[in-house]
């Protein structure tokens, strides 16, 4: 039934406008519902009432009186920052994936195309090798993520022709260079101490997230997400090609650069907190296209919402299913790959 409706949704956009609008609104509200639901989930069972009281206690402290301190701490200091981080990281990775796919006119790329994740992975590994604190690891990851993309950009400017192709190539080169550097660090790392930490970080996880890592992530993701939201219709024009964009009075190269900078900042911030979480930037944009079509006016908001929802759901599995944490990178791959295969088979629409 749902399948039939959905098929109609994208085939007969003009006829089914109202149904499509409902779906759009539902998708946008989904992450907020999931955030509330996620706060109820966890290995430690806390009643719905106490979760509610704990949340309201920040506004009305009297609400917390009957809630045990342990439950207060768990809801406010453990679950809340983690759930918010998962939503923000998911939104950042998915929306930057859409942006990159639009700019590079290639449905098979995500925001790691220019090496930001590889650079961040190297930065984090280096910080862990130096015995750094969580803050140092995040700082290094963020910094080296930006550095990798800057290197790719500067490298591409050395050539005058076909900047996008050269930029892509430079991104891949810089990405593999930092990948090799990370392997080198793993090679020299102490197998007892540093290596497990590096491996776990590279697989991604939100185990160690506390409030201290949320503000910078939130600011960058919200500002960057808002920017992508605002320029979303221009992405439609960019994905037509540079010649068309110029005809329509745009400066495509400048806009692309701004979007790349914005997406890189968002990805670096996400990776710095959550480690290397694969697949979201690739799978969620496709899922979004199937649900609301390739128009960026809706695709950007939907990918923000779907990315947040997807990572929230995955992280709930990771933290509440088993006593031990399953790395997020493992789960996103396990769930994301079959999903992508399924969607590619069913998807008949254009990109």
């Amino acid at each position, binding site marked *: 039934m749902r399948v039939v409706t959905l098929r109609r949704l994208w085939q007969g956009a003009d006829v089914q406008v109202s149904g499509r609008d409902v779906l759009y609104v539902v998708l946008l509200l989904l992450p907020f519902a999931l955030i509330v639901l996620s706060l109820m989930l*966890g*290995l*430690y069972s806390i009643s719905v009432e106490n979760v509610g009281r704990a949340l309201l206690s920040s506004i009305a402290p009297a609400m917390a009186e009957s809630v045990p*301190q*342990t439950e207060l*701490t*768990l809801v406010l*200091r*453990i*679950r809340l920052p983690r759930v918010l981080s998962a939503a923000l990281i998911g939104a950042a990775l998915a929306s930057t994936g859409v942006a990159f796919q639009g700019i590079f006119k290639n449905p098979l790329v995500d925001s790691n195309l220019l090496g930001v994740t590889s650079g961040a992975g190297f930065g984090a590994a280096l910080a862990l090798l130096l*015995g750094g604190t969580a803050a140092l690891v995040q700082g290094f990851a963020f910094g080296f993520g930006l550095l990798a993309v800057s290197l790719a950009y500067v490298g591409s400017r050395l050539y005058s022709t076909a900047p996008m192709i050269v930029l892509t190539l430079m991104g891949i080169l810089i990405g593999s260079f930092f990948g090799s550097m990370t392997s080198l660090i793993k*090679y020299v790392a*102490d*197998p*007892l*101490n*540093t290596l*497990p*930490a590096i491996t*776990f970080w590279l697989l991604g*996880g939100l*185990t*160690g997230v*506390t409030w201290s890592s949320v503000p910078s992530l939130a600011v960058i993701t919200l500002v960057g997400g808002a920017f992508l939201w605002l320029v979303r219709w221009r992405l439609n024009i960019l994905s037509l090609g540079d010649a068309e964009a110029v005809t329509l009075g745009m400066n495509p190269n400048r806009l692309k650069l701004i979007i790349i900078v914005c997406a890189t900042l968002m990805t670096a911030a996400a990776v710095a907190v959550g480690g290397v979480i694969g697949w979201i930037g690739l799978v969620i944009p496709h899922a979004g296209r199937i649900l609301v079509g390739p128009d960026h006016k809706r695709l950007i908001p939907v990918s923000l919402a779907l990315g947040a929802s997807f990572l929230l759901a995955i992280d709930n599995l990771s*933290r*509440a299913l088993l*006593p*031990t*944490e399953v*790395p997020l990178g493992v789960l996103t791959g396990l769930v994301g790959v079959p999903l992508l295969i399924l969607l590619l088979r069913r998807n008949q629409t254009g990109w």
Partner: protein
Amino acid sequence: MKWNYRLVMLVLLGLLILNGNVGLIAAQDALTIQADEDLQPAVAALYKAFFNAEPGFVAADGDLVATTDRASLPDDFQGVPPHFLPDAFFIAQSERASAFIDFAVSPDGQQALIDAGFLPASVTITDQAGNSVVIPQPVRRVITPYSIATYLVYGVGAADRLVAGGYLGARDPIGAARMEAIDPRFPQLSGYVMNQREINIEEIANLQPDVIFTSARSAWLDTVAELDIPIVLFQGESPELLKQSMQIAGQVFGPNAAARAAAWSAYYDRIFSQVMDVTDDLEADERPRLLMVGTEALRVISGDMYQTDIIAAAGGQSVSADLTGSWNDVNLEQVVLWNPDVIVIVPYGSVTPATLVDSPEWQVVAAVQNGRVYKMPSWVAPWDTPVPDSVLGIIWLAQTLFPDRVSLDCAAEAMTFYKTFYDYDLPSDEIAAVCGS
């Protein structure tokens, strides 16, 4: 012609000096030996190999006593007497005997006894992966890519036969300095890329080891097997398996090593039973619920690990005993669910009690509220891992959990332990600080 004459004179002179010297050594160092009747042929074989002369056996007041009777040891004797045959050892009565004793327990001494038929030319052992391994004797060169096995070699007193190895706990400057004080060859021995994952097979071939000690989980076993070097696999993740590890290491290096392995087992059993005497009759609710965390605050031990056993021996119960495999990453919610009474952080890694105590998130855990968060001490080899030194980890843990009941003293036992099994005198003030006493 004159040149020839000079040359001949020179050679003759040289021979004269050499001959005189040999005679001098033999005359000065000829030892008088008191030996049980049935040990005399073996002692004679050793003596002949070392001095190229027949020994003079005496009934009393020899420089050296060869015996199987432990009662003839001086009352204040500590450690393991040098064994040249299974159950037969030397007691030095004068300083002059030491070179001969060193020779007797060295590979050359073993070779002399093998040539004379007193020791077998090869031993067959069953390693901890269940493989039967034939090892020609004596073993002169051993490599230990599995860094836990390195300490087994030290424990049985065969460190002089190490040519390369991994060293657990000696990566940081403090550990490295301590290890170098124990064994001056440490910088050279540890200077290879060699662990369970990585090994350079050409380098191994170059090192020409007689035997390789590693773990069954080494990634390169098939490649290295091509070199036709005996490989002994270890897996010591329980007290019984650790004792077996030591026993195997002892068998590989001959009678003296075997005697030291047996002595270590006896020491381990004695400490174990002394601790168990205190902790055995504890009811389940008297046993502190203990969480042992690793190199990250949220990385905890599993029930399959050796650490779980030493926690149980020391009278605690590991809250994460239901987990399997190796280290497990958990989240704080799970820790709160366990709500441990005590948290112990392993000796290695950057996590300290302050990491947890200063964190607002950890305040809900009972151990943090009660201020019972500890970092396990260690000297070089981490005391929580299945190395000979872990006996000290049991002592420290028992002392920490039951300070009123356990009479063992970590620092004093550590002094004895390192003297006996590493032949090293620990700096007493430093070990006292390490043990926290």
